[in-house]
């Protein structure tokens, strides 16, 4: 659509390993509007991080291959953009990334302050202004921004923190540092891969508020990967559900929780821990992506599956305003 900030079309990515070729993304469609907060949910291994990395052009070069697809952003196809331009113009600038595993994101031999100063040298919003200050004035201006941002993500005593090494801060502090570093360059899209998993609920509430504020006031879009459906409920406008490399449902947040249309979404919601239902997983296993089930990849675990589910992947169908589902036997309102 014209109003989209980013549109992923028919994206196919495979990984080569000794065991064979794994088809990790199988024709993924996903479009996000400016200022939208989009949740991305689905079982572990369904390809959420791979989608993020494909958009950013940071798939592992030897193991991964993009077989087809487009990622349209700012009028160009990011998949065609040369690496040098992606690195200079897009990554960490227009599109920021908060990676899933904060332990790998820092270099252990430099202090946190050194690493953030380095980031600001290249990616500070000041570098993009008409007459940027230089030398010491620039460094001081950038430093002030850094300190203010660390306060915004609720990190106490920013000056002392900047002198620390990565192993000297707690898991949640590292995660907030990652968030601060992603936001400092003032991106248009933030891809946040489980940004609040290591945070207690009080800090999580502040971080979610911060993301929501960025979206509402500065029109920043967020692709928010999470396993925490409560956090998704808090801030998302819409939610995309993925299963084994295919997107199966996309719905406005209220519809997602109240009127899910795909049987997998229903089961995902049913596995939320609660005192009444106890611990309920989804029976069966995630399929191996080396020889995935044909058609709808959820068919082996779905009690509604019929011959057509094995024959072809269901096409996208409208289930309501802004609500798209891919299922041959979607739930009726009564069943949802």
């Amino acid at each position, binding site marked *: 659509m014209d109003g989209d900030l980013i549109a992923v079309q028919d994206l196919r990515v495979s990984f080569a*390993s*000794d*065991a064979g070729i794994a088809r990790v993304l199988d024709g993924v469609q996903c479009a996000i509007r400016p200022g939208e907060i989009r949740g991305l*949910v*689905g*079982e*572990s*291994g369904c390809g959420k*991080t791979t989608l993020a990395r494909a958009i950013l052009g940071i798939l*592992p070069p030897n193991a991964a291959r993009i077989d087809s697809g487009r990622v349209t952003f700012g009028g160009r196809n990011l998949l065609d953009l040369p690496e040098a331009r992606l690195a200079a113009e897009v990554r960490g600038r227009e599109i920021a990334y908060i990676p*899933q*595993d*904060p*332990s*790998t994101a820092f270099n252990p031999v430099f202090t946190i302050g050194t690493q953030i100063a380095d980031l600001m040298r290249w990616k500070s919003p000041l570098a993009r202004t008409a007459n940027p200050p230089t030398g010491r004035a620039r460094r001081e201006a950038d430093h002030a921004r850094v300190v203010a941002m660390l*306060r915004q993500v*609720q990190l*106490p*005593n920013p000056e*002392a923190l900047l*002198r620390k090494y990565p192993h*000297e801060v*707690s*898991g*949640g*502090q590292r*995660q*907030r540092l990652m968030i601060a570093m992603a936001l400092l360059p003032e991106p248009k899209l933030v891809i946040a891969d*489980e940004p609040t*998993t*290591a*945070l*207690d*609920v*009080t*800090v*999580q*509430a*502040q971080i*979610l508020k911060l993301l929501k504020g960025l979206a509402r006031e500065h029109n920043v879009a967020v692709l928010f990967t999470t*396993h*925490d*459906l*409560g*956090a998704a*409920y*808090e801030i998302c406008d819409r939610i995309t559900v993925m299963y084994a490399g295919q997107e199966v449902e996309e719905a406005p947040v209220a519809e997602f*929780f109240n009127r899910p249309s795909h049987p997998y979404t229903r089961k*995902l919601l049913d*596995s*939320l*821990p*609660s*005192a009444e239902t*106890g*611990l*309920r*997983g*989804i029976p069966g296993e995630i399929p*191996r992506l080396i020889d995935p089930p044909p058609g709808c990849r959820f068919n082996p675990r779905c009690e509604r599956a019929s011959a057509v589910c094995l024959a072809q992947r269901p096409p996208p169908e409208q289930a309501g305003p802004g609500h798209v589902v891919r299922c041959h036997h979607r739930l009726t309102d009564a069943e949802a």
Partner: protein
Amino acid sequence: MSAAPILEVRDLRKYFPVRNLWKRRIGWLRALDDVSFTVQPGEILGIVGESGCGKSTLGKTLMGIHTATAGEVMFQGQDIARLRPHESRGLRQHLQYCYQDPGASLDPRWTIRASLHEPLIVHTALKEPEREARVREILAAVGLPETHLDLYPHEISGGQQRRVGLARILTLKPSVVILDEPTSGLDVSVQAVILKLFLSLQEQFGLTYLFVSHDLSVVRMICDRVAVMYLGRVVEIGETSRIFATPRHPYTQSLLAAIPRIGGARVTDTFSLEGEPPSPTNLPSGCRFRTRCPRAQALCAQQDPALRADWPGQAAACHFAE
């Protein structure tokens, strides 16, 4: 009231030096400041609290990864707080710590098989075929296919790495397991499977767990008791149902108020906790929560409140808790 505790922690301290630009020590960061609690055999004790309050430090100090600054850790009748890791290896085989960052605990150059064999090589005299059998048994228990044995950590997803981390410590069949955020990063469905696995292993092997987690709905479901920490201190401890029904400490109260409730009012619209958390290198006088506490009074700046066991099955460190 009950059997002898399996683990007894008394006034445990862990201070880290704080250094200036020239690496001179200019103070101490009190990551653990007089933490005391006991754990009964077969119990699941939840440990919750603000990020950075010292939960991982507690786990690592119990394990001997960090040496305690002061205090005692009684495990199987011995004080292990001051033992160096090599002195306590035999004991600590029965006390295992499962790391928070799954990526950090797996060696990127090793296959999953090598990572799973390693603890058995270090701690047991098992021969290779027996080790392989044990590894396969545990791998199946955590729900990973055997084909994963030949993969490297970067070839599997974050949630799968976490299961490998779990498998790694379970191979040693420990008696007390410290689980540092064992389900963060797992989807709800896998999480349910893993939690059921913990419960069944607990029954099968009589395990005791220290369960560090930010996920309060999980803590509520599986823990017998909960300890709430704030800046290096236990501020409230007690039976899970009581803590959730009648939290006494104002910090516990704000923690429970910040849990998102699907379908309810959004916490991001309603919740607020005043101020920034104070720096652990520069703690406020008296009660360390007072700078953010809605009920703080003059007394709170003068006197550090001790844990008061004034309620059945529940204790809180607050002058004004009722």
